[in-house]
């Protein structure tokens, strides 16, 4: 049982409590980890956890089996997911009805419930242990490992696994300069997108005059399809707090702020609980662990705008002003929150900090490249077989992520492109798959690291249409302050939209490219500066597809509605008329021979007829 929350006054007290918690590390104790993250919750993890609890009360009155509702376990494709220890058995698509069997087997430690195991698609064999599933096997889960084991609502769980040891080490005898030295040696770079060296940012802030400085954690995470930061905050919030504490110590700040988007209610609740627990135990507040160092953290909830993830906009939003970026310099390290020197880092950046202190910089940077130490979490989504949270060292080839970890393209289709870095990232083609994921390599290929979104597209995707989609997103999310971004993105969208509607010309492509380069060059903040990436990268790698749209008025992937039509194949049509009944546009009628015909002038290309046709007679042409 957890000891009552009592403020630690000295490091020795922490050590004593940690010793008393050693039982929690007992690897032989049966334990269930049910993923409580959004994906699994949507698929019924709540009901499953309740059912398991109910069964446990009946079958295990002594409480031998431990149940943890954890943060994201990673393999979201298989939601809801359960892990059983010892053994780390991985159960997939678990239903509440499976609870009885799961608990029984776990109590008896009789091995896994075979029917819930993952089947390897290549060999057709069941795999029991999570670590042997290709999705996990090819990863290096240093940060995400805790998500398997830690109950995010219980600070003692974090303590038992060595939590706050890094803080103890820092307070117990490292000077701020030494902390910075470790970060430098570790080659830690910001995970929020730009990849700025963290030590440099801290150094800039530390050497600024002024007694009041701030540490801000950027947890805005506005990229559609990205949830790395949320998974860390919901799975292991104390690691982020510890990272912020160490940053505060290093730069001489006494106040930290987490700017967290309101659209993450679970993360808000868990982080709030974590902050309160840390405060009660004396990891936050005045005179932390008797060291004289004072630091406290508050949470500011954002109102959900992509641009508020940009650091200067975020700071303004945290101050209670309109979330609009301003021109840099001055950088936040010089003049940030309330005009004071401010260090602003991403959630994942902070989560890496305790790891570096604990392991030592040299061991930490064993993973990674010459320029970037450690691992990076990606959100692998789109047309891959295994979507989910993926953690790999910097320098891992894209091919490994998409094919070995992601398991290749859904439905055996052909790979077409992978977009890295969120809506303003670039689309990389097949020939770039051997690229190593690192800031410089991706930038050289015309894309960005961004915060780690990775969207895989298959042959059925039209890159022109995808570009239009991202431009539309960026147009809506642009704050509108600077002309280049507001009007430039809008005009790029106008041109690309025209191309998808069959109204484009080759001059349009030249104009588009010219405009994109200017928007990239002259925009005020990162949003506009990167907004051209989807355009420029697709023009670079998929020009032939653009040319098909403008020259032949043809959409090779048959996605752009103005550039293909549906047709009924007379040889296959059975004359059942289902298509005509379903068509809301009234575009389908019976022909003289009892077969059906589609009027392309009336048809709005919704595709309902294709679904309705039992004979697969309706095709695109």
């Amino acid at each position, binding site marked *: 049982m957890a000891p009552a929350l009592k403020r630690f006054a000295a490091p020795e007290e922490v050590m004593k409590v940690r010793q008393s918690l050693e039982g929690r590390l007992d690897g032989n104790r049966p334990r269930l980890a049910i993923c409580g993250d959004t994906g699994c919750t949507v698929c019924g993890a709540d009901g499953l956890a309740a059912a398991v609890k109910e069964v446990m009360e009946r079958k295990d009155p002594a409480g031998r089996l431990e149940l943890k509702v954890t943060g994201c376990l990673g393999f979201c494709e298989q939601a809801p997911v359960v892990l059983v220890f010892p053994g780390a058995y991985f159960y997939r698509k678990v239903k509440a009805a499976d609870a009885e069997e799961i608990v029984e087997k776990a109590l008896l430690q009789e091995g896994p419930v075979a029917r819930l195991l993952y089947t390897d698609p290549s060999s057709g064999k069941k795999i029991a242990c999570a670590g042997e599933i290709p999705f996990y096997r090819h990863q290096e889960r240093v940060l995400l490992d805790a998500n398997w084991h830690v109950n995010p609502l219980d600070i003692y769980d974090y303590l038992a696994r060595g939590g706050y040891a890094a803080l103890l080490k820092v307070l117990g005898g490292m000077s701020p300069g030494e902390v910075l030295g470790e970060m430098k040696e570790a080659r830690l770079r910001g995970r929020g997108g730009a990849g700025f060296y963290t030590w440099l940012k801290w150094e800039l802030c530390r050497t600024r005059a002024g007694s009041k400085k701030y540490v801000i954690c950027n947890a805005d995470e506005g990229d559609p399809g990205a949830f790395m930061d949320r998974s860390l905050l919901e799975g292991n919030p104390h690691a982020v707090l510890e990272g912020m504490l160490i940053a505060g110590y290093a730069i001489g700040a006494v106040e930290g702020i987490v700017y967290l988007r309101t659209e993450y209610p679970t993360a808000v609740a868990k982080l709030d609980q974590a902050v309160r627990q840390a405060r009660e135990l004396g990891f936050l507040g005045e005179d932390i662990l008797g060291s004289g160092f004072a630091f406290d953290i508050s949470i500011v909830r954002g109102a959900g705008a992509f641009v508020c993830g940009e650091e200067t906009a975020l700071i303004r939003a945290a101050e209670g002003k309109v979330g609009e970026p301003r021109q840099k310099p001055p950088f936040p390290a010089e003049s940030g929150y309330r005009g004071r020197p401010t260090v602003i880092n991403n959630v994942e950046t902070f989560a890496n900090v305790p790891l570096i202190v604990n392991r030592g910089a040299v061991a930490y940077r064993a993973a990674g490249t010459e320029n970037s130490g450690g691992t990076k979490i990606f959100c692998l989504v789109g047309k891959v077989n295994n979507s989910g949270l993926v953690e790999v060292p910097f320098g891992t080839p894209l091919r490994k992520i998409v094919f070995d970890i992601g398991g290749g393209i859904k439905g055996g289709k052909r790979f077409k492109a992978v977009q890295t870095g969120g809506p303003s990232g670039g689309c990389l083609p097949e020939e770039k798959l051997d690229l190593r994921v690192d800031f410089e390599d991706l930038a050289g290929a015309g894309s960005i690291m961004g915060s780690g979104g990775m969207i895989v597209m298959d042959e059925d995707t039209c890159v022109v249409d995808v570009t239009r989609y991202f431009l539309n997103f960026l147009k809506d999310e642009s704050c509108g302050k600077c002309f280049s971004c507001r*009007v430039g993105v809008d005009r790029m969208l106008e041109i690309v939209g025209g191309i998808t509607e069959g109204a484009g010309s080759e001059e349009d492509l030249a104009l588009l490219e010219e405009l994109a380069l200017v928007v990239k060059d002259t925009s005020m903040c990162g949003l506009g500066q990167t907004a051209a990436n989807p355009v420029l990268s697709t023009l670079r790698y998929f020009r032939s597809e653009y040319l098909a749209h403008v020259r032949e008025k043809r959409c090779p992937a048959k996605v752009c509605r103005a550039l293909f039509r549906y047709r009924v194949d007379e040889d296959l049509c059975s004359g059942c008329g289902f298509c005509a009944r379903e068509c809301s546009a009234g575009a389908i009628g019976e022909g003289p021979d009892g077969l059906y015909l589609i009027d392309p002038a009336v048809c709005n290309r919704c595709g309902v007829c294709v679904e309705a046709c039992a004979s697969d007679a309706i095709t695109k042409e």
Partner: protein
Amino acid sequence: MVEMTLNGLMVKVEEGTTILEAAAFYGVNIPTLCYLEGLSPYGACRLCVVEIGEPGSAKVATSCTHRVEDGLVVRTHSARVMKARRMLIELYLASCPSSKIIQDMASNHHVTRVRFKQRHEDCILCGLCVRMCAEQMQGKAIGFAWRGSERKVTTPFDKKSDACRLCGGCMYVCPACRSRCQGPQAEQAVCNACLNLPQTDRNYLFFDNAVCEAMEPPGGAPKKMTNRGA
């Protein structure tokens, strides 16, 4: 004093000034739409961009917001900058052809065509009026509402504002409505009437808009400019 390189010349500048101010001091004219002496720099029109740093690794930044630093290397009219400025002016013309200031700027930069679909949005959201109202008139009657392409200048909740004293300061500084283009083909995107004037007049005129207005452009009496192009 700070020492920096401006278009290849070593110059000494007062510390704390912006690149734009320093350039003006040395007679280098950088076009602006959202800058006005006496108002805080805002960095929205992007026309004042300059290249900073050594060629190859140079970055583009707005000179109105960038303060001078020792050893700064600035090019105010490099090919990269001019290309960007011309494109921006083309975009401005495509949105707001009725502004004489923008038309003059187009002629001045030899922007002679507009390749975008013509729109007629009078406001270019330079924010001069908002800053004028707040910083010089202590009014704070107007501000920005919405975001992205829906952004607009308005009073709180679009209601008649008690804070507004109808001083007209906002209109006085507005580059879009302060003076209307009276050129012969003003309903088209590019007027360029001034380009047909003799070279000597042209140079003179680009430094004094008032003269341009008073002059009768070639090709008869000035056409009346309509508000929405139709």
